[in-house]
C-alpha cells in the first residue's frame, strides 16, 4: 500500500488576491461605461462637450452671477439698461421672485386672509400624506375625511362668507393656489365621471354606449384650449338670462370635462384587463350589475390603472396652466403678468420667473411620477398579463 505524500499541498488557505484592475475600481468602471470602444469614446467626448457647454453657464447664471436681493429693477439690469450691474452681466434675478413670492402663491387674495389658504393646505396635507403612506392604518376613515368632509371645510375656508369669515371672490384668487385647486378639484370630479363614462362605453345598451363614445371621442379629439373657450364664452349663452356662473367655476367645469374623457379611457383599459371569469363568477353568485361592478370589477380594474390615473393627473396639473389663456391667473399666468410690472421689468426678469414657475411645476410632476412608480411596484401582485 502506498501512502500518498501530500506535503506539497498547502494546509491553509491562500490570502485572497485583489481582483484584476480591469474588473474593479474607478478605472474599470470608466473603461466599461465611458470608453468601451472607439465610437463609445467619441460619444463620451461629445457628451462631455455638451455638458461643458451647458452646465457651467447654467450654474453661473442661476447661482454665481445671480442677484439674490434687491428692491426694484435696477438690481437686475446693467448700467446701460439703467441698473447697477456691469455691462454684459447675465444672471438670474431671484430678487424678483423673492419680492413677488407671496403673489405667486396666493395671487390677489387679501393679505390678512391668507392664513385661510395656508390652513386649508395644511389640513389637506395632513389628510393626504397618511393616505399615501401604505403602512398607516384607518385608510377608510382617512379617505372619507379627505373626500367627504374636507371639500366643505376647504370651500368654507377659501370662499368664506360663513362662520364670520369675509367673502373672497374668486377673481382675486391666483398663483399656485389656483393651480392646485383647479387640478385637485378637477381630478376628484373627473375620476367618478370618468368611471361612469368608461362603464357606459362598455355597456350593452346601445343608446348609453353611443352617448358615452361620442362624448369621450369628441373631447379627446379637440385641444383643451377650445374646451376652455367653450366653457368661458359659450356656457354663459347656455344659461337662462340673469343667471351667471363664476368664471373660476366655468374654467373648473372645462378642466373637469376634459379630464373626465381622458380618465374614462384609462379606466376602460383597466376594465378590459379583467378576465371574463370574474364577471361570470360574480353572476353565478347572483350579484346585480352594480354589485358586480362595485365589489368585484372596479376594485381590481382601478388597482391596475393607478399609474395611468397618476399620469392623467400629471397631465392635468400641467394643463391647468392653459387657463392663463382665458384670462385667469394660475401660477404661470401670474408669473407672466408680473413681467410687465414696471418696477421689475428687466431683460432677466422673464426668464427668471419662468425658470421659477417651471421648477415648481417640475417638483410636483416629478414627485407624482416617482410616487406612481413606487405604487406600481408595491401593487404588483404578480398576476400582470
Amino acid at each position, binding site marked *: 500500500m502506498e501512502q500518498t505524500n501530500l506535503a506539497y499541498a498547502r494546509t491553509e488557505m491562500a490570502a485572497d488576491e485583489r481582483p484584476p484592475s480591469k474588473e474593479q475600481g474607478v478605472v474599470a468602471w470608466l473603461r466599461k461605461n465611458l470608453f*468601451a470602444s472607439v465610437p463609445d469614446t467619441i460619444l463620451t467626448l461629445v457628451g462631455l462637450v455638451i455638458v461643458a457647454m451647458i452646465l457651467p453657464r447654467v450654474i453661473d447664471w442661476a447661482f454665481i452671477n445671480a442677484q439674490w436681493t434687491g428692491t426694484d429693477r435696477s438690481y437686475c439690469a446693467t448700467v446701460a439698461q439703467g441698473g447697477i450691474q456691469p455691462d454684459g452681466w447675465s444672471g438670474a434675478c431671484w430678487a424678483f421672485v423673492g419680492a413677488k413670492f407671496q403673489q405667486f402663491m396666493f395671487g390677489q387674495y387679501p393679505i390678512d386672509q391668507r392664513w385661510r389658504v395656508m390652513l386649508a393646505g395644511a389640513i389637506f396635507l395632513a389628510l393626504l400624506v397618511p393616505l399615501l403612506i401604505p403602512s398607516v392604518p384607518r385608510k377608510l376613515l382617512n379617505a372619507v375625511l379627505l373626500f367627504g368632509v374636507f371639500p366643505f371645510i376647504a370651500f368654507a375656508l377659501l370662499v368664506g362668507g360663513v362662520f364670520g369669515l369675509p367673502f373672497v371672490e374668486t377673481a382675486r384668487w391666483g398663483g399656485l393656489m389656483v393651480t392646485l385647486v383647479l387640478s385637485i378639484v378637477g381630478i376628484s370630479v373627473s375620476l367618478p365621471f370618468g368611471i361612469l363614462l368608461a362603464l357606459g362605453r362598455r355597456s350593452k345598451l346601445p343608446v348609453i354606449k353611443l352617448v358615452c363614445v361620442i362624448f369621450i371621442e369628441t373631447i379627446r379629439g379637440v385641444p383643451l384650449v377650445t374646451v376652455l373657450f367653450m366653457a368661458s364664452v359659450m356656457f354663459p349663452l347656455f344659461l337662462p338670462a340673469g343667471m351667471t356662473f363664476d368664471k373660476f367655476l366655468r374654467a373648473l367645469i372645462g378642466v373637469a370635462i376634459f379630464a373626465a374623457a381622458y380618465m374614462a379611457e384609462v379606466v376602460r383599459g383597466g376594465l378590459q384587463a379583467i378576465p371574463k371569469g370574474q364577471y361570470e363568477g360574480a353572476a353565478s353568485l347572483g350579484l346585480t350589475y352594480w354589485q358586480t361592478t362595485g365589489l368585484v370589477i372596479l376594485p381590481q380594474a382601478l388597482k391596475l390603472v393607478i399609474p395611468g390615473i397618476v399620469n392623467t393627473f400629471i397631465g392635468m396639473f400641467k394643463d391647468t396652466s392653459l387657463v392663463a389663456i382665458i384670462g385667469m391667473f394660475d401660477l404661470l399666468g401670474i408669473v407672466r403678468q408680473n413681467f410687465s410690472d414696471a418696477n421689475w421689468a428687466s431683460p432677466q426678469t422673464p426668464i427668471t420667473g419662468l425658470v421659477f414657475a417651471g421648477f415648481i411645476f417640475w417638483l410636483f410632476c416629478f414627485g407624482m411620477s416617482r410616487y406612481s412608480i413606487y405604487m406600481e411596484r408595491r401593487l404588483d401582485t404578480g398576476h400582470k398579463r
Partner: protein
Amino acid sequence: MVSQEMPRDASGAGASFINDPRIRGLIYQAVLFVLLVAFVYWIFGNTVDNLRRSNITSGFGFLNSRAGFDISETLISYSSNDTYKWALVVGLVNTAVVAVTGIITASIIGFLVGVGRLSENWLIRKICMVYVEIFRNIPPLLVIFFWYLGVLSALPQPRESIALPFGAWLNNRGFFLPAPIWGEGAWLIPVAFLLAVGLCWFVARRAHQRQAATGEQFPVFWTSVALLVGLPLLAFVAAGFPLTFEFPKKSTFNLLGGTQIRPEFLSLYLALSFYTAAFIAEIVRAGILGVNKGQTEAAYALGLRRRPTLRLVVVPQALRIVIPPLTSQYLNLTKNSSLAIAIGYPDLVHIGGTILNQSGHAIEIVAIWMVVYLGLSLVMSGFMNWFNAKMALVER
C-alpha cells in the same frame, strides 16, 4: 321518493316584468334619451333667447364678410380685404405647417434621445435621462413662453444682429435666411426628383423579385440614395445652375430681404418639438425594450450580424409596439399647437379668437374649431391605423 318541485315556467311568470334585464335596459335608455333631449332643448332655447337679446344673428353667413385684420404670417396669399372664411383657411395652413415641422423634428430628437437612454455609455444615458425628466414634467405652455419671452426676445436688436454662416442672421425679430430665387429651367429639378422616386420604387421591386427568385442581393439603399441625389443634381447642372440667393441686408433698423422666420413660429415650433420629443423618447425606449431578448439571440444564432439583426428583426417588432402611442403623441402635438394663441402665432385658434372678438359669433367659431380638430385627428389616426395594419404581424 321526494322529487323536488321545479318551477315549470322558464319565462318567470310571477316575477315582475320590471326585473327583466331587457326591459330594464330599455327603460334606462329611454330615461337617458329623454333627459338628454330635454337638456339640449333647454340649452338651445336659452341660447336662442340670449342671442336675440344681444342682437347677434346666428349661422355661418358671417364667414363671407370682410375680415379687416392682417395676419403676420401667411403661406398663401391673404389681405385684410379677404373674407373670414379665407382667414380661417390661412390659420389652418399655419397650424398644419407648425404641426408637420414639429412632428418631424420631435420624431428625430425623440428617436435619438430614446436610443440614447439605452446606450451602453453612462454619460449619454444620463444626459438623455435628464432631458426626458425635465421636459416631461413641465407644462408645454411654459416651454413656449421660455423660448418666446426668455430666449428669443432676449436676443439683440436688429442693429446688433448675430451673423450666422451662409449669410443668415439672428435677432429678436426672428431668424433671417437667404431667400432662394429660382431661375429659368428650375422646373427640371422637381421633375428629376419625381423621376428618381419612380425609379427607386422600380429598383426596389425588381431587387425584391430577384432576391426571392435567385437569392442574389442588390444594394437597394445606396442605389436609391444615388438616384435621389444624383438625378436632381444632374438636372440642376443641365439647366445651367438656375439658382441665386437674395441675402438679407442689414439696414439701420431692420434686416431687408431674405426670408424671415418669425420668433412666434420659432418658439412654438421649438417648444412643441422639444416637449413632444421627451414623450417620443420614452415610447421609443419602451418599444426597443419590448422586443424579447430571445429574438436578438435567435438572429445571432442564425448567423445574422448586428446591423441586419437590428434592421430585420428588432426594428420591425419595435415599430409595432411604438406606432399606436406614437400616433397619440403626434395628435397631442397637433392639438398643442393651439397654444399658439398665447404668443400670437396666427394658427387656427388664434385667428378664430380674433374673429370671435370682432364678430361675437362664439358658438360658430367654437364649432368650427372642434370640427376641424376632430377632422385632423380622424385623418391622422386613420393614416396611422393604415400604417399600423401594414406593419402588424401577419398571423396565420
